[in-house]
């Protein structure tokens, strides 16, 4: 992993490129790795993530698939069980529903029901989230929902380092790992250490230290939450912002340490409110830190509606900084 000195040397890079570098690096380092999915090859990936990789690695390892989400996801799982290390790209979480049987009934269960004889070390990547005015069938945020399933791990890289670093670690994992890339992050630009490499995939990280309230979030919402934290700072409220990074398993320790310090928390999560990951985190805080709480835990989630097309409705449907600010203030009794 990158040392402090090496970090001095940085490159300007987009999130999209960071994911691409991660895939390229994995393909170079391990013969067993290949990428498969709809339009990952000739088209260059629906969000241009895999652009250029076909020319570099050829059609066997950058494998365009037919529109058969269940079939090719299952094939990825099978290939993993036979020793390969496939990266299955499901384009977007919206289409992953077609592959859910293979993910839940095969990938997530096979180690257990085979008595530990077989595992499925497959990595399944997909874009997630709203914000591009793609309406009801193309704007789901189901990563928190997937986190319900025992037998899989669920990652949500929010930063360039994580976009670059989580994939390799996930590929080393003996069990299936789902990686959710928020669509709104692909164009995000920033600096990355020239020698950035693998990162851990089991710890939440404090992205902004603060003492008044804990804002717990992940993925695309991290940036809105940091924005909210800045605005709160201007009003004298010092918010701590936690990036969960891994949605399954959850790193309770980091969350509880923060809440024990700040005694107040708001969870920000782009999933629909009812049955959201935010509810799970709130419940864990209640279970593990109830007596330290000075106020009810708040949550900022998506409204209970299929995401509407018009910009003003879409914006109102998903978490935004003003809502986060309001929830934080409410938790601090400053509404």
């Amino acid at each position, binding site marked *: 992993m990158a040392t402090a000195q090496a970090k001095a040397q940085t490159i300007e890079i987009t999130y999209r490129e960071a994911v691409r570098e991660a895939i390229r690096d994995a393909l170079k380092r391990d013969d067993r790795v290949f990428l498969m999915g709809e339009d990952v090859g000739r088209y260059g990936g629906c969000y241009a993530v895999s652009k250029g990789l076909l020319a570099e690695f050829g059609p066997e390892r950058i494998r365009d698939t037919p529109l058969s989400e269940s079939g090719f996801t299952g094939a990825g799982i099978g290939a993993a069980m036979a020793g390969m290390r496939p990266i299955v790209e499901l384009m977007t979480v919206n289409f992953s529903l077609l592959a859910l049987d293979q993910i839940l009934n095969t990938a997530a269960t096979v180690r257990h029901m085979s008595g530990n004889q077989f595992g499925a070390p497959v990595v399944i990547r997909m874009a997630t989230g709203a914000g591009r*005015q793609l309406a009801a069938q193309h704007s789901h945020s189901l990563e928190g929902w997937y986190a319900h399933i025992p037998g899989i791990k669920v990652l949500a890289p929010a930063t360039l380092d994580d976009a670059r670093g989580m994939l390799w670690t996930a590929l080393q994992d003996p069990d299936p790992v789902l990686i959710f890339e928020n669509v709104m992050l692909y164009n995000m630009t920033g600096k990355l250490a020239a020698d950035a490499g693998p990162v851990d995939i089991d710890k939440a990280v404090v992205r902004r230290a603060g003492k008044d309230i804990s804002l717990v979030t992940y993925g695309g919402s991290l940036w809105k939450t940091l924005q909210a934290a800045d605005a709160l700072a201007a009003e004298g409220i010092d918010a701590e912002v936690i990036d969960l990074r891994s949605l399954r398993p959850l790193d309770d320790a980091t969350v509880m340490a923060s809440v024990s310090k700040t005694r107040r928390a708001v969870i920000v999560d782009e999933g629909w409110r009812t049955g959201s990951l935010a509810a799970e985190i709130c419940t864990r805080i209640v279970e593990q830190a109830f007596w330290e709480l000075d106020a009810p835990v708040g949550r900022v989630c998506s409204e209970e509606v299929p995401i509407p*097309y018009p910009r*003003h409705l879409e914006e109102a449907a998903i978490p935004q900084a003003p809502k986060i600010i309001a929830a934080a203030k409410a938790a601090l009794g400053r509404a």
Partner: protein
Amino acid sequence: MSAAADKPRLSRAHVLDLLKQMIRIRRFEDKCAELYTREKIRGFLHLYDGEEAVAVGVIPVLEKRDRVVATYREHGHALVRGVPMTAVLAEMYGRLEGCSRGRGGSMHLFDHASNFYGGNAIVGGGLPLAAGLALADRMRGEPVVTACFFGEGAVAEGEFHESLNLAALWGLPVLFVCENNLYAMGTALALSESETDIQRKAACYRIQAEAVDGMDVVAVEAAGRRAVHAVRETGKPYFLECRTYRLRAHSMFDAQLYRDKAEVEAWRLKEPIVRFQGWLEANRMIHADDLVRIEAEIAAEIAEAVAFAESGTWEPLDQLTRFTYADKAA
């Protein structure tokens, strides 16, 4: 273009209408593309450029009581089916006056009045739906045809297989119209199907099938007529493969790395409007002023649609979660 047997119906009024409908879609979508770059239209925008003969050939053959199920590339289908251009464009603007109240956008045009069941952004997702609509008609003994449009990319989906089997097994009056434009986004047919002669797929389910030159509106119409007739008479499904080509990008985000410009140019020579127009000219069925009139009418209609969409209103924010469920009865 097509066989003599089909010509009787080709009155001058009729051919001019076919031509006009195709040009109408084309001009409308050209305007959409422009409005997209001006950010009036957002989200994904899938144009039908080159494929107009399919919707124009098939949909007018349907009756009012029939049903249409389409995909995210459905502007043409909606227009030909009779959804007002004003309501279609307002939808793409996200206006309350849009045909789906602005909530659906380009990929989700719906219209109850014309039995237009969307606008589905899940590839293959419309097929089971079409089977179900037809099941309802069959159970009620109504001689209604459900026309279901989908791309050749959808053929690889399990839902295609399940729907065709159900339709054949239960004798459901569905006209499956495969718009085979040779690509699913950037995936060429040969990379998605082991059997690339798509109409042969129907035989696997014992469904009657036909392939037609989808760039020839007269041929499509003739085949469409045969197909709709067969479905209505037998109550059984029918599979019509229309061989066509998408001349533009898949959506506005597509750099078209997967095909040569030369291939596109070669297909451009076969494109349905120029081809049909040339044939009409050669057969002296059209005059220069017909075209001028058609273009003028269309331009006026588009101008009206733009004005309508521009002056449309936004759904108030307090209505955000409405229509997740039906409004409670008062």
